[in-house]
């Protein structure tokens, strides 16, 4: 372990967090006003361009910098991040994001234009190469492309690679098999790539039903997409048998990397028989989720599929690095290399941890999930689970979530996967302390002990009270222009 490692906490891990009241500014039927309501200005566009090319005027908020700063500072105070408190959203891996990676990403050497000649961007190519190789080692894969800009983009890329591979082998296959408990993106990515999606039922243990898989697999099978451990946190123990069934039929096996945080140092998709996988760098390797992105979803493949990867790839030369186009490349899935700064941050995170640190990440993530589950009163119907578990609420899971907000924590993912009634899909991650896990358990249990009728009155400690989702969809108002039009 590193020489300047901060000490572990001592015996006492700290007390409960104090109750939380979220900041709110409030006046006249709204919280912090829109920028446009604070001060807008219409400027006549005077340009050296001819009139027929230009707009007449532009109307936008016009505020001095101090007012802009206050507006966004207030908005930030009406938001909840991982430094505000626990966010145990299942399958999202909301762990602490080390601050230093932001400073690395701000380093001058990241400010490089992608259209420089290879010789003039050796630093970038070197980092890309090292990250490619490192991810290949973590996944047990032979080749990695970093290009896909998110997990779903990784899925789409992987499916396109599989399609190109099958076509190159003269094999026309029309189906992708996806277990019913899989992430919605699996279904959507397969459909986007033009495949028919075959849904595979789970067995009574929450895992792939091998007999059903055997029945579903055939000469039309292009791909089986699997999350392992699955969204219930369960390892597919029959993975080798599953892989053999798919491979015997000429199909390929795709690994959804959303749950990789439970396998570091313990197992590798490549060793289980997977041919393609994606990594969610923003999950496993702790790059900030940014309120919904940017993420990054590199994919790894076995050697037979490497010639089909997107272009460009990076390889080592005598004393440097160069880009090249794989022999049968599917082309591009992003104009450049996706979210470059996310790649930099993830690489820094990996180097900081090293082998031993990464294995401890997964061990602690799994310990934390199991410890939390042992402390909550809701039923957890399936096990043994790894880094996440799905509890079953005895009330509406959506109401449970709102009530948990009043206990100062972000609730888990709710009502999904549907295989569990009133699901609370919970992933505490490795960076929550025992005290915070106890707080989370206390929040679950306080809500479990609350009269279900009272849950509908929550939340009361958040900036906004319960928000009417139905009317937002029935009467869509998606810009301040729409609000203005309505008030006229």
């Amino acid at each position, binding site marked *: 372990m590193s020489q300047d490692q901060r000490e572990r906490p001592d015996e006492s891990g700290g007390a409960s967090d104090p109750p939380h009241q979220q900041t709110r500014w409030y006046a006249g039927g709204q919280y912090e006003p829109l920028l446009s309501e604070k001060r807008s200005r219409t400027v006549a566009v005077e340009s050296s361009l001819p009139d027929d090319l230009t707009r007449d005027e532009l109307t936008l908020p016009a505020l001095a910098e101090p007012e802009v700063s206050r507006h966004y500072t207030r908005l930030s105070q009406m938001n909840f991040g991982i430094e505000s408190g626990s966010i145990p959203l299942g399958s999202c891996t909301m762990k602490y994001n080390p601050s230093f990676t932001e400073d690395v990403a701000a380093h001058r050497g990241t400010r490089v234009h992608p259209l420089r000649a290879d010789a003039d961007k050796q630093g970038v190519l070197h980092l890309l190469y090292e990250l490619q190789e490192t991810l290949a080692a973590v996944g047990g894969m032979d080749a990695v492309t970093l290009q896909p800009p998110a997990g779903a983009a990784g899925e789409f890329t992987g499916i396109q690679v599989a399609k190109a591979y099958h076509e190159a082998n003269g094999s026309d296959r029309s189906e992708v098999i996806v277990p019913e408990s899989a992430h919605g*993106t699996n279904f959507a990515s397969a459909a986007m790539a033009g495949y028919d999606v075959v849904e595979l039922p789970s067995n009574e243990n929450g895992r792939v039903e091998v007999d059903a898989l055997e029945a579903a697999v055939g000469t039309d099978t292009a791909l089986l997409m699997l999350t392992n451990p699955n969204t219930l946190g369960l390892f597919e123990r029959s993975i080798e048998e599953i892989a053999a069934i798919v491979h015997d039929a000429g199909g390929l096996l795709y690994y959804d990397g959303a749950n990789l945080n439970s396998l570091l140092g313990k197992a590798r998709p490549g060793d289980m028989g997977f041919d393609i996988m994606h990594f969610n760098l923003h999950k496993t390797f702790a790059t900030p989720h940014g309120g919904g992105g940017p993420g990054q979803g590199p994919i790894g493949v076995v050697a037979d599929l490497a010639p089909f990867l997107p272009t460009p790839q990076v390889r080592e030369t005598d004393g440097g690095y160069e880009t090249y186009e794989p022999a049968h490349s599917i082309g591009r899935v992003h104009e450049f290399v996706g979210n470059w700064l996310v790649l930099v941050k993830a690489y820094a995170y990996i180097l900081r941890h090293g082998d031993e640190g990464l294995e401890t990440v997964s061990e602690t993530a799994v310990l934390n999930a199991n410890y939390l589950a042992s402390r909550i009163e809701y039923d957890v119907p399936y096990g043994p689970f790894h880094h996440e578990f799905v509890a079953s609420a005895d009330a509406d899971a959506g109401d449970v979530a709102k009530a948990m907000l009043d206990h100062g924590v972000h609730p888990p993912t709710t009502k999904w996967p549907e295989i569990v009634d009133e699901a609370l899909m919970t992933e505490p991650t490795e960076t929550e302390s025992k005290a915070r896990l106890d707080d989370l358990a206390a929040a679950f249990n306080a809500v479990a002990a609350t009269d279900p009728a009272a849950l509908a009155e929550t939340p009361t400690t958040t900036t906004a009270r319960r928000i009417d989702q139905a009317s937002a969809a029935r009467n869509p108002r998606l810009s301040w222009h729409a609000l203005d039009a309505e008030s006229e």
Partner: protein
Amino acid sequence: MPYATHSDAERSAMLDAVGVADPDDLFDIPESVRFDGDYGIEARSERATRGAVEGILDESPDLTEFLGGGHYDHYVPSVVDHLSLRSEFLTSYTQYQPEITQGFLQALFEFQSLVVELTGLGVANCSMYDRATALGEAALLADRVRAASGETVLVPDDLPVRVRSVLENYADGPGIAVDTYPTAGGTVDVDALADRVDDDTSMVYAATPNARGVLEPDLDAVGDLAADHDALFCVGSDAVALSVLEPPATYGADVVVGDAGVLGLPTTYGMGLGLFACREAFLRQVPGRLVGASEDDAGNRAYTLTLQTREQHIRRERATSNICTNQAWLALRAAIHAAWLGPGGLVDLAEECVTGIAETCERIDALDGFAAPVYDGHHFREALVDTDAPAADVVDHCRHAGLALRTVDDGGTERLAVCVTDTNRERVDELIDALAGYGGDA
């Protein structure tokens, strides 16, 4: 583990609570697929990690870039970093619980409003990955909404291969064909396009500024051609250019795609912020996240993700797109940058993109051995330059002076490309000196 949170005593207590002696006992993984090797990575202190990564990054030389080509550099004011890096923004995730994430939702609503103002269209989503994936999504939208069964998307012959390749991957699933129409004199050849558009055309795409940096003069006519055949008209542009250009909706655009990362995002090796706006009629077919206004139980206006039944986590294989994680934080940064500039500042910035390249072309044109710009018309940020010497030699020569330029295959002719914005304009003198030292007959 550097971010360890448990003391040894706590860890023991937790292991006792779950009834195992070692965390490894919790892993329900068959021995046959257990990993007993190593990745070969040595842990480092924070300081050593920074040294290692920054050392690698420093292997790229410090150059003055005149590159462009889809990734543009504008000065990003300090407030953008300081505000967007507030951890409540940076370390949050998708707003599944809107009551506790009003701040980010409102910022995204304001971003959508900015895009609506710039494009003139009724609906904007809160981001796509980049301009190329946004164009791919537009082609899929056209395929879904068009009444007739046409399945060909027409793109101009100057569309960069990098963008076209992404579009082709998106188009592959539903079997959409991507076909090229010609340009002439640096802009869309409207007559030639008229010969190409037919009832099989589902979408016509044109960009302004186009790949040669020229502002398209006749997009009305392109829009009319598309409309005549019930094809969607998709316009590509960016958030700075649209601050002065005629809003595409006024000349018939059904969809606008492009890059909004020209605001809030400096040169970062091609990271993008895909902009996507369309006519309100296509609302329920829009890809990606949408933030809408609603009310909370206290009767106050509040924001929430809306129309989620379009999305993959609800609609699965019938979703309008597979996109989940997007570029939300970059949308926040673009919104802050735009707020900081205000409408006057945005217009000034755009105007600088017009005058900077025009002046630079004038100076290059005055040099022996160079003609700039190659094409008539008004340019935005970038232009192509004719060189008596091979363009690649000119690029090499400039490189010795610490200047990064590139060549473009312009319909079979290799030409020099030059991009000038507010951040490299003061270095144009160096460019002129370097070019002047490389006379055409050298």
